[in-house]
């Protein structure tokens, strides 16, 4: 129900008749009190009018594609015969920031427009907020609170800066500088191209002995060129990754930024690129490795649809303790798991673990010898992630794990106790990380300022 209040003017007019009554008593002049009654009656004039006051607000949001940190204009047009006071800085939700500091307050009257520039802070589907203001009666003695929800949903894509950076960093020379051997993850095609004369340095395995017997000199089989292997990113979109951080972003936002950079790097280095996004329950999307600009563009558009930030209060860190443990399946679940397959990974059969479902996608397609980069904080279902690494290794894939470590991201937000709990949680992960390392998985720790190229750089250093 809208709140109705006396405005400043109304309060003055409320006091004024009382003051006149005091004068009336002082001068012993009753007609002054009569004047006071007439003036007091104006409050009922306004009270009657305010109940009929309403405003209609039309919203106009410019442009189609919004990206993080790129401002766009929001316009409102006021239809109605009343004046409307609104504080713009209070309109916006956490996902947005007002670009111009000066435009904090605005007074709107009939047919007037208001516009302000808004800067999205995080990726996802968002509603901008609510226009909260006061509408006044014609005498401006009373005011009524009005709330207008901006209905239109805004789709915010990842920062264009990320793409620009990715493009800069993924110039071949740049990438090669950091990645010691960019073609380290390559596979030789079995397609036979022809035979040529043996050159020193050619593999003895490739000598074509039949030609040798015919021609009497060593000949070498030539295959189609050695090609880089496909790169697939497994992106974890579990609630823990989507928890809103103090700056309004999420670990998922940064992970997407990193993914795009890494994918662009690998794309430039000639690898096919693909992505599988999953949450703690299921796969969100799966895109097979593909080459070319279109592949990158497709992935860039796909990540736009990934779920946005969620309130940190809804997922306390303690909740992650009930992580998935495959060894703790009940009898019924075990029976079910045996029948349906080894990738059923949670204690409730309704929910598959996302990471294992992603592995299942690879297995079903019979894809092998790929570079799989898992980006996950491992806070939800770390056991499943370990299993996933195991299975991927069984399928002869190269596996990297990029882990956004929570305390680095949340140090400014959480209290000491929560931070300690978080560290303890991370310590529990140490064993799992150790097992992953033993399986031959490269582990990279991710922190807020890290760029995608530094991962390649780290990898280059480790290789040497």
């Amino acid at each position, binding site marked *: 129900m809208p709140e109705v209040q006396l405005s400043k003017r109304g309060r003055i007019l409320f006091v004024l008749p009382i003051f006149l009554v005091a004068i009336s008593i002082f001068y012993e002049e009753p007609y002054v009190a009569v004047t006071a009654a007439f003036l007091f009656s104006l409050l009922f004039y306004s*009270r009657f009018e305010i109940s009929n006051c309403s405003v209609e607000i039309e919203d106009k949001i410019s442009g189609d594609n919004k990206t993080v940190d790129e401002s766009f204009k929001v316009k409102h047009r006021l239809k109605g015969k009343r004046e409307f006071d609104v504080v713009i800085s209070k309109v916006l939700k956490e996902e947005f920031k007002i670009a111009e500091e000066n435009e904090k307050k605005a007074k709107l009257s009939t047919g007037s427009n208001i516009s302000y520039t808004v800067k999205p802070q995080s990726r996802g589907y968002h509603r901008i907020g609510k226009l909260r203001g006061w509408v006044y009666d014609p005498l401006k003695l009373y005011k009524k609170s009005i709330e207008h929800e901006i209905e239109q949903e805004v789709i915010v894509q990842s920062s264009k800066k990320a793409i620009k950076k990715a493009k800069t960093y993924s110039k071949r020379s740049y990438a090669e500088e950091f990645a010691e051997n960019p073609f380290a993850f390559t596979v030789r095609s079995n397609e036979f191209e022809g035979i040529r004369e043996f050159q020193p340095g050619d593999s003895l395995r490739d000598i074509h002995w039949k030609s040798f017997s015919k021609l009497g000199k060593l000949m070498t089989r030539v295959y189609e060129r050695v090609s880089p292997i496909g790169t697939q990113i497994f992106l974890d979109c579990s609630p823990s990754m989507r928890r809103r951080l103090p700056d309004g972003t999420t670990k998922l936002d940064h992970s997407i930024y990193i993914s795009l950079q890494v994918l662009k790097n690998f794309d430039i280095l000639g690898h096919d690129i693909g992505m599988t996004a999953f949450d703690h329950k299921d796969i969100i999307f799966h895109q097979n490795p593909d080459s070319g600009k279109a592949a990158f563009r497709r992935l860039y558009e796909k990540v736009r649809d990934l779920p946005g930030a969620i309130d940190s209060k809804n997922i306390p860190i303690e909740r992650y303790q009930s992580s998935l443990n495959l060894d703790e399946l009940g009898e019924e679940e075990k029976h079910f798991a045996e029948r349906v397959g080894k990738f059923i990974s949670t204690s409730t059969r309704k929910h598959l673990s996302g990471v294992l479902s992603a592995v299942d996608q690879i297995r079903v397609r019979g894809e092998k010898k790929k570079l799989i980069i898992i980006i996950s904080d491992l806070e939800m279902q770390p056991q499943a992630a370990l299993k996933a690494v195991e299975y991927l290794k069984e399928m002869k894939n190269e596996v990297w794990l990029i882990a956004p470590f929570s305390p680095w991201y949340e140090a400014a937000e959480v209290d000491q106790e929560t931070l300690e709990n978080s560290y303890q949680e991370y310590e529990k992960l140490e064993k799992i990380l150790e097992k992953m390392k033993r399986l031959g998985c490269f582990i990279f720790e991710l922190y807020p300022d890290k760029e995608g190229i530094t991962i390649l750089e780290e990898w280059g250093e480790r290789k040497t």
Partner: protein
Amino acid sequence: MKKEKFITHILGSLLVLSTIYHSHSLYSVLVSVPVFLVSYSIHQKKETLVFPSLVLATILSPFFISSGDMNEIFSLLIFSATFALPLSLYWIAVLLKGTEFRWKPIGIALSYVLFTALLFYLLPDFLDISEFILSPENRVPQILMFFGSGMIIAVPYNVILEIKS
């Protein structure tokens, strides 16, 4: 000159004349100063000055009102019609800008005054204290009674209007 502005200036002049008429002193001409200030601010579109000038004019004018008697209904009606009602209308004319003038809320406001007056005359009669209250010697209880009647009526008015909204 716009119609609204014209009405405001006319009402202002009427108020000054009325104050002079209802007072027995030429000092009442002083009321013309804040009234002129109101007209000037409206004309110069100095929004911030309008309301304070209006309040000043309202405070100043009743200082000069004298010789009122609640027993003389005719005199009271003349006063209401020539001063109190124009003052209320003056407030509306000054504060109302560019919006349509509506009779219904004015009717609500005037009915409040009417019911206050009714209660003021009926209640003492019911309590059998009419003579005491209406006597010119008991001005202070008379004013307090009128003020009390206004407050008693204000409550149901406010409730009704709140229900309406």
